[in-house]
């Protein structure tokens, strides 16, 4: 699920955003080099149709090498970031803080792209001068390995969306998950990159600005979503989905979960059943009796979404549910009026238990 999101992000915003930052220089210098190469070979004399066929492969080959190197480099980077995340042992709260920080960073970047105020330029990542010079000189190098080298070096000039994905890889908390996140994302960016580079289009300053605005709006939305998820994961009552939930709750209390077992306060634990589906938790609001311990049974049935990673921030509970099965969580007796919030580990799906 998360990988699909990463792939689609790459396919849509990531591809365009990366092109705006990396494509202008790299794709055009690649294309120039290939054009010269093709022209040189054609001049040496070949039948027209044969030359055209060769031209097509010769154009595609270096671009594919470039993208392959980029994919490998980012996958390794994702692995390293994931490893770093696992060393840091991120719990729900630090992940939430990270998500909110990513959100602020993305919104800052979006406002920078929209040129709202010069202040937001502090969110821009500028590689040091010697790295910029090295990349530029490599782009002009005629060696066969140039596309590979250039592709790998794009890790040094990540675009705004890529930087956000790098943070997601860090938050993934394991080398494998981190590598998979950036692999899926970079794979997603490849078709757009290939198409533009193949057409040997280099983005002119005017066209680039148009792309930047489009990307800025998407990044702004992704930033807000990230902050929203962070707030959910912290169990904060002020996130947009929680506010929507309280409205929902006020209007339709009939959707609340059923309490089974003894209802008397102070009695033995009663049981609440929560279903973790691929699109969220059902019911999203559960009612429990205050003053009595609760046994929360979270059930899954072929659930593969992030709802499988279940978090109750206030209890410090973090469970990875089986894809199909049941996980029991013991909740100690709570005073009347307690609202215990739960969420998936990404903060995307939420719900709460109300004790009264």
């Amino acid at each position, binding site marked *: 699920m998360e990988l699909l999101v990463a792939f689609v992000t790459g396919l849509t915003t990531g591809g365009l955003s990366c092109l705006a930052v990396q494509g202008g220089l790299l794709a055009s210098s690649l294309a120039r080099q290939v054009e010269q190469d093709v022209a040189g070979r054609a001049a040496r004399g070949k039948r027209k149709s044969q030359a055209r066929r060769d031209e097509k492969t010769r154009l595609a080959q270096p671009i594919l090498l470039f993208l392959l190197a980029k994919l490998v480099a980012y996958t390794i980077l994702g692995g390293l970031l994931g490893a770093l995340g696992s060393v840091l042992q991120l719990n729900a709260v630090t992940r939430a803080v990270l998500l909110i920080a990513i959100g602020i960073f993305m919104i800052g970047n979006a406002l920078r*792209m929209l040129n709202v105020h010069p202040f937001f330029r502090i969110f821009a990542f500028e590689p040091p001068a010697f790295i910029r010079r090295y990349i530029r000189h490599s782009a002009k190098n005629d060696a066969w390995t140039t596309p590979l080298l250039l592709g790998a070096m794009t890790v040094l000039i990540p675009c705004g969306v890529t930087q956000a994905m790098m943070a997601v890889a860090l938050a993934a908390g394991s080398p494998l998950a981190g590598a998979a996140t950036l692999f899926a994302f970079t794979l997603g960016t490849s078709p757009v990159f290939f198409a533009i580079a193949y057409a040997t289009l280099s983005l002119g300053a005017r066209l680039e600005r148009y792309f930047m605005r489009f990307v800025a709006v998407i990044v702004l939305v992704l930033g807000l979503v990230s902050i929203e998820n962070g707030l959910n994961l912290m169990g904060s009552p002020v996130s947009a989905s929680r506010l929507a939930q309280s409205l929902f709750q006020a209007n339709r209390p009939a959707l609340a979960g059923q309490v089974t077992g003894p209802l008397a306060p102070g009695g033995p634990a009663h049981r609440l059943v929560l279903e973790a589906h691929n699109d969220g938790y059902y019911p999203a609001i559960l009612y429990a009796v205050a003053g009595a311990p609760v046994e929360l049974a979270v059930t899954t049935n072929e659930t593969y979404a992030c709802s499988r990673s279940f978090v109750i921030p206030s209890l410090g509970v973090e469970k990875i549910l089986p894809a199909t099965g049941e996980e029991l969580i013991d909740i100690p007796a709570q005073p009347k009026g307690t609202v215990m919030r739960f969420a998936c580990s990404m903060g995307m799906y939420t719900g709460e238990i109300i004790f009264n």
Partner: protein
Amino acid sequence: MSEKVTLAIPDMHCANCVMRLESLEDDLPGVVSITASYRSQKMEIEYDPAGVTIDQIMAAVSRLGYHPERR
């Protein structure tokens, strides 16, 4: 004997502009070095007046789609 000049580039809008502007270092004979900054919207140019004039440099920047202003 080389000279230095700073140009304000108010329409620089991303890190790619920095690299594009700095590529003039290789393309313009007489230019010794260029350091551009997106954050400060400026480019510092070290050049040899015997090889290139400041007007030629400004014209080259304009050809890339920017509006340089001399500081």
